[in-house]
């Protein structure tokens, strides 16, 4: 589609306007306003879905009463036809005389037509744009196309604003958790707390030794976190048995507390034989959070003790204190790292939405994501226009030397029969989802790619597609030299960041395209300007010698240099005629060039059109007589004056009169009538010449068009006269048309606005 220049720069402004607001409420108002303005419409209503499964709800209006917006919103199911989001088709309604809410609003506010434009995101309908016109009939095609573009821009901007709001909200919630856990039990105090609990337990029961072991969330092995009264040998012994085959292991596995009255005879402590630390009786309790056992608290006495169930309950409650401290600390750590992540994401999202320069954006995205996930290097590849090849858009951590070596990888085929098409990036795009490979050497799917991976010395790779709304734009790949498995939260974060990046990128790319189109349009204008300059110059240069040629010939023909014999007279007449033709051609070319470049200016003044007509007929008197054509006039008296450029009005009449002479047979007649119709003066030039076929009538006013018959071919003409005449009548605010029948003459009529009471 071609966008007119004015609208193009307007779209560019809109794109910048949208990207400047990250607040949804502010953004929807801007969308409604911009849509109405660019479509030259009278009002607009914007409805959005909060969630994909929610109904459409009122979001913003432009020039529409609140009452109307409410009516539309409340009754939306009744009047809104089903919109198909994947086709992006707007619905044009030229008849708003309906009984539903839409009809009532149109009647109340005086709208005659409307266009419903779907706003889609991720292949589903997220909103709808209803634009109203007071004027009846079909809205202009360009307006509808521009609205589609605005809807497209709006879709990205809305998604972006929501993403930012979400990130802002989440980071605020995490801030609260972070502060709470920090006050309950800050990380440096966890060890202290565990030590206190262990000391308290020993003091309470008069025991001499004990330990707290925790289950490592990743390895599921038991880790000693606090201990008392244990020799180095015992500690080593315990560390070497971090699994289930120990007392602590039994407690974790069964989730039950246990009393060991005699270490020597109890089967659970059979393996204690040879233990250098003297211990006789023990108690061991699980540390439980919710339904999960996270560790074990054990105390022991080197004297024999008869621990009671009451003792065990007491130890259990101490254990639950420890569990709380540990859980708090874990939450604190988690909150801290998630907060950092969310803050980083929020920062990225905010920066993304404020950048419209594509290369800057590409670099920003790949640099920040690579650094954020501690990747050794990263690439951002973009699909080319055909969608068959990936082009490298930006890279991180890759040296120039490496680029020279792997130059062929800068452009990557997606064809699955090639090695490149087998790459994780290609697979990610084909499948349209994240691909994470923790060790490429062990992954069967990428056997073909292994060699390249080895050459580039990476072990792990994560690829995430860039999908702004429906179609993918490209893929981000992060490479790690060591085997690296990203946690689910990290993958989720990467996907969120990729989505935000994709939206920003799409907007920037659209903006870049708009800018490019504007630049090429300006270049075209420049060329057209040069053309006009050239034609002006050439025509002046031609006119100078023609002035002398024509002047001297006419001096001789007028007899000022003495008499001529008939042959000399005849030949000089031929020279004179051809000079006239050349002058006419130069004039026509100059006129059409100035008209096309909009540089032809009229000097308007009140004129009596009758005088101009009489003058022009007089000027053509010899041509009429030459062909024996009779000319009559029928001029209404008391005609109002017209506002016209006298030279150009004369040119219009001269063109029509000379055409009538050219295309009429000898001995026929031409009639010129002038009258008034309404607020216009109407001039008709009626001939009884060859006439014009219906199929030629439409093309008559095109430049360089000449009728297709022998008389036309035999008659001199540039094919510019009627085109110029048409433009000149237009510029005077009038209309020109022709009625004709092949073989029965033609009537050319033009109207020109009269000066009221003039």
């Amino acid at each position, binding site marked *: 589609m071609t966008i007119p220049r004015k609208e193009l720069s307007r779209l560019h402004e809109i794109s910048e306007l949208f990207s400047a607001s990250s607040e949804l409420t502010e953004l929807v108002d801007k969308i409604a306003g911009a849509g109405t303005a660019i479509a030259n419409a009278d009002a607009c209503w914007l409805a959005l879905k909060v969630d994909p499964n929610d109904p459409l709800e009122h979001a913003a209006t432009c020039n529409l009463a609140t009452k109307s917006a409410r009516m539309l919103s409340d009754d939306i199911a009744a009047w809104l036809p089903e919109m198909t989001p994947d086709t992006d088709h707007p619905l044009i309604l030229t008849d708003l005389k309906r009984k539903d809410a839409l009809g009532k609003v149109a009647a109340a506010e005086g709208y005659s037509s409307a266009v419903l434009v779907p706003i889609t995101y991720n292949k589903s309908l997220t909103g709808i744009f209803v634009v109203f016109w007071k004027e009846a009939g079909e809205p202009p095609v360009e307006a509808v196309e521009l609205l589609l573009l605005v809807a497209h821009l709006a879709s990205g901007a809305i998604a972006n604003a929501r993403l930012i709001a979400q990130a802002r909200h989440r980071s605020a919630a995490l801030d609260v958790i972070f502060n709470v856990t920090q006050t309950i039990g800050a990380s440096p105090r966890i060890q202290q707390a565990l030590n206190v609990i262990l000391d308290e337990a020993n003091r309470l029961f008069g025991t001499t030794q004990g330990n707290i072991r925790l289950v490592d969330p990743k390895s599921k092995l038991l880790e000693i976190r606090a201990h008392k009264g244990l020799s180095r040998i015992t500690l080593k012994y315990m560390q070497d048995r971090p699994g289930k085959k120990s007392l602590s292991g039994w407690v974790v596995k069964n989730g039950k507390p246990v009393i060991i009255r005699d270490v020597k005879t109890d089967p659970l402590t059979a393996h204690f034989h040879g233990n250098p630390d003297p211990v006789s009786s023990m108690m061991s309790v699980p540390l439980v959070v919710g339904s999960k056992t996270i560790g074990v608290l054990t105390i022991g006495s080197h004297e024999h003790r008869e621990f009671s169930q009451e003792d065990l309950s007491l130890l259990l409650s101490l254990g639950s204190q420890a569990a709380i401290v540990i859980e708090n600390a874990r939450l604190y750590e988690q909150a801290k790292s998630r907060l950092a992540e969310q803050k980083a994401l929020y920062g990225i999202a905010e920066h993304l939405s404020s950048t419209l320069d594509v290369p800057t954006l590409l670099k920003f995205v790949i640099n920040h994501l690579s650094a954020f996930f501690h990747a050794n290097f990263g690439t951002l590849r973009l699909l080319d226009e055909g969608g068959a090849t990936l082009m490298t858009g930006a890279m991180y951590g890759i040296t120039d030397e490496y680029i020279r070596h792997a130059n062929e990888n800068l452009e990557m085929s997606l064809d699955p029969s090639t090695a490149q098409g087998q790459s994780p990036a290609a697979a990610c795009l084909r499948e349209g989802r994240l691909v994470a490979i923790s060790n490429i050497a062990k992954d069967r799917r990428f056997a073909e790619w292994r060699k390249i991976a080895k050459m580039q010395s990476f072990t792990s790779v994560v690829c995430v597609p860039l999908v702004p709304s429906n179609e993918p734009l490209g893929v981000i790949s992060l490479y790690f030299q060591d085997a690296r498995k990203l946690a689910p939260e990290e993958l989720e974060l990467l996907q969120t960041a990729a989505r935000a990046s994709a939206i920003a990128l799409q907007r920037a790319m659209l903006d870049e395209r708009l800018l490019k189109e504007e630049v090429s349009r300006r270049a075209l204008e420049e060329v057209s300007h040069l053309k006009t300059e050239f034609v002006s110059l050439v025509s*002046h240069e031609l006119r100078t010698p023609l002035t002398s040629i024509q002047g001297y010939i006419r001096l001789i023909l*007028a007899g000022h240099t003495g008499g001529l014999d008939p042959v000399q007279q005849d030949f000089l007449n031929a020279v004179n005629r051809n000079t006239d033709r050349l002058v006419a051609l130069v004039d026509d070319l100059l006129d059409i060039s100035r008209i096309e470049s909009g540089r032809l200016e009229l*000097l308007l003044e009140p004129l009596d059109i009758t005088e101009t007509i009489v003058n022009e007929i007089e000027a053509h008197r010899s041509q009429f007589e030459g062909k024996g054509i009779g000319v009559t006039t029928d001029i209404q008296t008391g005609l109002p004056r017209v506002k016209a450029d006298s030279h150009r009005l004369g040119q219009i009449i001269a063109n029509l009169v000379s055409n009538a002479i050219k295309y009429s047979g000898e001995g026929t007649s031409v009639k010129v009538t002038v009258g008034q119709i309404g607020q216009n003066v109407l001039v008709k030039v009626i001939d009884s010449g060859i006439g014009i076929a219906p199929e030629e009538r439409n093309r008559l006013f095109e430049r360089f068009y000449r009728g297709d018959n022998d008389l036309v071919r035999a008659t001199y003409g540039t094919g510019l006269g009627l085109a110029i005449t048409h433009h000149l009548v237009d510029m005077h605010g009038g209309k020109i048309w022709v009625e004709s029948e092949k073989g029965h003459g033609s009537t050319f009529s033009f109207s020109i606005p009269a000066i009221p009471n003039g």
Partner: protein
Amino acid sequence: MPKILVVDDEPDVVKLVEFRMQKEGFEVLTAGDGRTGLGILETEKPDLIILDIMMPLMDGMEVLRQIRAHRASARVPVIMLTAKTASVTVDEARQLWVSDYVMKPFDPEKLVAKVKKALKLPA
């Protein structure tokens, strides 16, 4: 006998106008550029000036401004020879009181008619 000054940078045009005006019985003074034309005005008092608009060094409009600035020539009728390309300057020429325009290329007979009209001589 009316005296006419012709100012044009094209010698052929000057000669053409001079020839035709002399045929009409007028006395003719000629200048090939604006400055020379203004120089002639310091000593001569023509009854009419035929002035080309598009001239190098000093264009016709500037010459016209200077003609009007001198008391001696402030009211001399001036006929401008114009190229069609110069329509923008017509407004200004109107303010500087131009008797008539002749569009190049021109028919010498029409020029004669306009000169006679400006000099209020019978056609």
